[in-house]
Each structure stands twice: as structure tokens, then as C-alpha cells.
């Protein structure tokens, strides 16, 4: 029996969903191993129970909370896909400001009309079995996890910084180019794609288990940005994670 797989989206940009539809070369191979029973963005069908549920997006409203509990109850394995689901991602930036202020910026006088929750990771509400990190999640990571699950293998947690893959690709370090990069404290696994394309790492895959915040801030400020700006950069994708 092929495992029944479902995809669900919460508060997100749906880029991770699209990235799955963008697996053009592998899509047909994937369908040999799994049966997709729910994928709102691509199909009408719905099912009752799932072997593997992939969750995209942050939890940011009371109805999201209900829905994720429901999905968890009906799923054997639950996987958080992409930084919104894994740690709140960019959505969590709104948590940094007092919620009233956020609402005022957007709604002006009508701010009290609307209910909203902080943007939370899936794991802060229900148990998450596996994570696929990144904004967007990378297709290779997704496939790797899927194949692991098909093989019954427990995918180990990756805890090496982006710099590792950056070095293995023999990139010129952006710090040597006078740029500021979050690679040293960001959990790798993306093949350092941003530095490889000349752009700084924004920290989209979340931070290492034990990042050296102070050391990192010192590095960043030594390379020409203000402490304030350095903190903001760190928070971009990791507002829920950074402990300063």
C-alpha cells in the first residue's frame, strides 16, 4: 500500500506548495511511491486520514489552531514544510511589534475590528515529527525526506552552518567582499545557494541549535552595519527563535 500523503497550507505565501509543483522532473517518480490524497492548491479531492501530512504556513488565527489539531489527529506522521511552518518565518516579524501598533499601521481607526494571534510555528501547537526548512523549502530537502520516509529511515537533524556548504562550493566569503551574511549561525542544508549566487544568507533555514549571538553581532557590526541593523537582519526569518 502506498502511503497516503496530504498537503495543507496555513498562513504563508504558498511558495513551498509551488516548489512541489515545480518538481517537474521528479513528480511522476514521487507518485510511484505515494498516493496524494489532498492538495488543495492542485486538486479537489479530500480524505479522512493520512499517513504523512505536510504542513505549510504559520498558525496565526484561532481557526488555524483548530484546523491543525484536527489534522494532527488524523495523521500518522506530520511534517512542517518551510520556515513559516518550522518557526514562523517572516510572518513572525509582526510578533516583534506590539500587536495594537501592527493593527493600527494596517487598519488605521478600524484596528479593533479584527482578531489576530501571533504568528506561531506548527510545533508550538502540535507535535511535529519532521521539518523541511527554508524559505522556500528546497526541493532536494523535500525529496530527501520523502525518500527517507519511504525507506523507513529517521532523517537526522542537520546542525551545521551554511558556511560549511559555502566553503565546499569554494565561494568567496561575502565578508571578504565587504557584505554581511548570516551564514555562520544559520542551519545549512541549502548548498549555500544564496552566497553561491552572490547574495547574503538571510537566515531563512533557522538558526543552529546553539548560535553564538554575541559573536555574530560583533562580526556583523565589525563589518560596517549598526547593532540595530544587525539585530534586525538576524530577526528577519527568525523572530520567534532569536534569544537576545
Amino acid at each position, binding site marked *: 500500500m502506498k502511503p497516503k500523503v496530504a498537503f495543507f497550507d496555513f498562513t504563508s505565501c504558498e511558495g513551498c506548495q509551488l516548489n512541489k509543483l515545480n518538481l517537474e522532473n521528479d513528480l511522476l*517518480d514521487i507518485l510511484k511511491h505515494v498516493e496524494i490524497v489532498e492538495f488543495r492548491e492542485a486538486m479537489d479531492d479530500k480524505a479522512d486520514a493520512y499517513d504523512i501530512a505536510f504542513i505549510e504556513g504559520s498558525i496565526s488565527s484561532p481557526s488555524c489552531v483548530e484546523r491543525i489539531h484536527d489534522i494532527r489527529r488524523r495523521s500518522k506522521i506530520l511534517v512542517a514544510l518551510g520556515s513559516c511552518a518550522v518557526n514562523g518565518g517572516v510572518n513572525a516579524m509582526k510578533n516583534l511589534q506590539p500587536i495594537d501598533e501592527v493593527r493600527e499601521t494596517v487598519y488605521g481607526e478600524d484596528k479593533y475590528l479584527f482578531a489576530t494571534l501571533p504568528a506561531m510555528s506548527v510545533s508550538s501547537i502540535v507535535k511535529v515529527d519532521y521539518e523541511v526548512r527554508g524559505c522556500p523549502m528546497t526541493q532536494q530537502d523535500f525529496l530527501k525526506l520523502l*525518500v527517507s520516509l519511504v*525507506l523507513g529511515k529517521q532523517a537526522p537533524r542537520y546542525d551545521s552552518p551554511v558556511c560549511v556548504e559555502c566553503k565546499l562550493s569554494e565561494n568567496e*566569503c561575502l565578508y571578504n567582499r565587504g557584505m554581511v551574511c548570516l551564514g*555562520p549561525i544559520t542551519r545549512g542544508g541549502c548548498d549555500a545557494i544564496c552566497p553561491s549566487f552572490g547574495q547574503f544568507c538571510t537566515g531563512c533555514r533557522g538558526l543552529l541549535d546553539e548560535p*553564538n549571538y554575541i559573536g555574530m553581532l560583533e*562580526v556583523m557590526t565589525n563589518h560596517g552595519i549598526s547593532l540595530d541593523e544587525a539585530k534586525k537582519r538576524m530577526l528577519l526569518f527568525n523572530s520567534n527563535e532569536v534569544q537576545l
Partner: protein
Amino acid sequence: MECYSLKQSDVPALIDHLGAYGEVIAPHRKGDVSYSFEPVKDSEKVVLEYNRTLLPLKKCFLPPTEKLMDFSLKDMSYKPTEVPIKPAVYFGIHSYEMQSILRLDHSMLSGKAESNYFNRRKKSRFIGVSFSPDEYHFSESVGISIEEMEGFDLYLNKVSDDYQLYIISDKGKDLLKGFDKLIQAEPIHVEGREFNKKIRYHYNRLPRVFQYAYHSKVWAEVAERCVGCGSCNLTCPTCFCFDVNDQVEVTAEDGMRRRSWDSCMLSTFAEVAGGENFREHTLNRTRHRLYRKFKYITDEEGLPWCVGCGRCTAFCPADISMVDIINDLIREDEKAQFHKTVRV
């Protein structure tokens, strides 16, 4: 030693000539301010005046990632990756880089010799080139001069605008057969290539410093600034630790086993099942890194396992300097000695 003069403008011709022996690998520009060793496609593009490449020459013999085998999950069989023995010329190599290869030879060939490394190394020829030390080079402090020729087959010494070419081995001589742009010359000593960065002690004295440095507070100071990115190990020419991983294709039928460079500066490096981590803190890891360079292997082989290329310092985002750490340890050691003497 035979010595010839070679015009700067004839260097590309020499490179082309060497191509007859095998693939030529030489320094090229890479990025805005960096260099890397690349196979030569156009000999005009080779850069002989460079400070250091991003990755060391090691990458040619112990590649950053390397496929060890293909396997099939259908019948649990595998096919080893063949590493052919291919002739190759490594051109424009600095003395410390050559020394690092000799050390790597020891690491990969002593005990049980590894065939993958051996095959890649078997038919390699090395052509050295002199360099002007920048603010990071300190190879003199670890006993390697600019003109150290051990390991090279030929050596190019930059003399004003042109080069002097030394024939160091018979293999080197063979490489030059049929190359007619050389003129017999007298060796000239080149003045003024000074190292700016120096370890305060002769390297012979360092193992003793390290003997008492295990509990130094210098490690904690370094650990405070170190962001643990692993760049120092991953660019080091004498580091050789690796990790092995299996990758399975989407078909879930075939896959491959790969190894890739690892770094003892990474938090999971010494973790075992059950979560016990034998080097849990950055402090333990930094210390291990330096002990690997100046104590553990050094005690056995009598040589520092650091060649002073300066990569770990130049490529450290936190500007942590190998030489500064050692000089701090020395200073601390001196202080301890002083106190001991005073007390007596």
C-alpha cells in the same frame, strides 16, 4: 641545481608545454578578491601573483565531496567508484601548499594507505612559485621559507619582472624536454620578501607551550568570539577529517555513498548516539583544532601540522587569528614561568 631564466611573457607557453604531460591545474582569479586552483583552459588566464587560493590544493587529492560507490537497493549490490591514475601538473604552487600536500600524504597513506588518495596523487607533478607574504602568511614561523623547494619538480622564483626556473627533480627535467624558451642563468637571491606575521617562538618550542596550555583562559576568550562556522578547518590544507553519507534517488531504488569534508569545529562532530558530546563547547573544539596543528601529530612527527598559509585567519568572519592565539598562549606561558621563578 640547474637554474634558468624565464620571461614573464613566456609563462603561458610553458604552461601549454606542460599540458603535454597531463591536465594542468593552476591558480585563477575567482570572485572579487580571491583565487582558486582550476584546470587551465586558457594559459593566459593563469595568475601567478596571488596571495592564497580559497580552497587548498588538497581539493584535488581529497575532493570536498567524493562519491565512494553507487549502490542498488533492489539487490543490495554496489559498484565501487574507480579512481583512475591520471597524470597532472600542479602549476604555480606556493611552498607552504607543497608542504601541506606532503603532510596530507602522511595522513592518508600512513597506517592503512587509501587507494583513492594514492591514485590521485600517484602521477602528480608540482611546479612551485615564490610569493610575497601578505598580512596573514606566517609559514616562516612554522619552518617553511618562501623558497622551500622540497616536493617540487620545478620552481619559479620571481626576480624583478621575470622568473628564474630551478630544476629540482628528474621528473621536472623530463617535463621541460622540448621547451626551448629557457636561458641558463645564475641563481639570484631575492631580497625584501618579509613575513609580516610571526609566531614569537621557534616552532620547536611550541609543543612545550601547548603541553601547559590545555587549561589556559585563552580558549574561553577565543570561544566567546568564534561563531563556529567551521571555515577555518574547511579551508585548512592539512585538515583531512570527513563525513560519510548515503543518498538515495527519488526512485528509492538506487543511490550513492559519498564522503565530504567535515570540521571538528562543528558542534556535532564528536557526538555519539545517545547524545553524549565529547567536545560539547566551542572552547573544547577550538582547543582541539590547535592541538591537532601543534601538538598531537607534532609530538609523533616532529613537525607542526600547520603550514602557515593563513587561510584559517584570512577566511574567518570573526577575525580570529591563529598566530595571535599562539602568541597569547606564549605570553601566558611566560607569565606562568615568571611567577614560578619569582616564587622560587
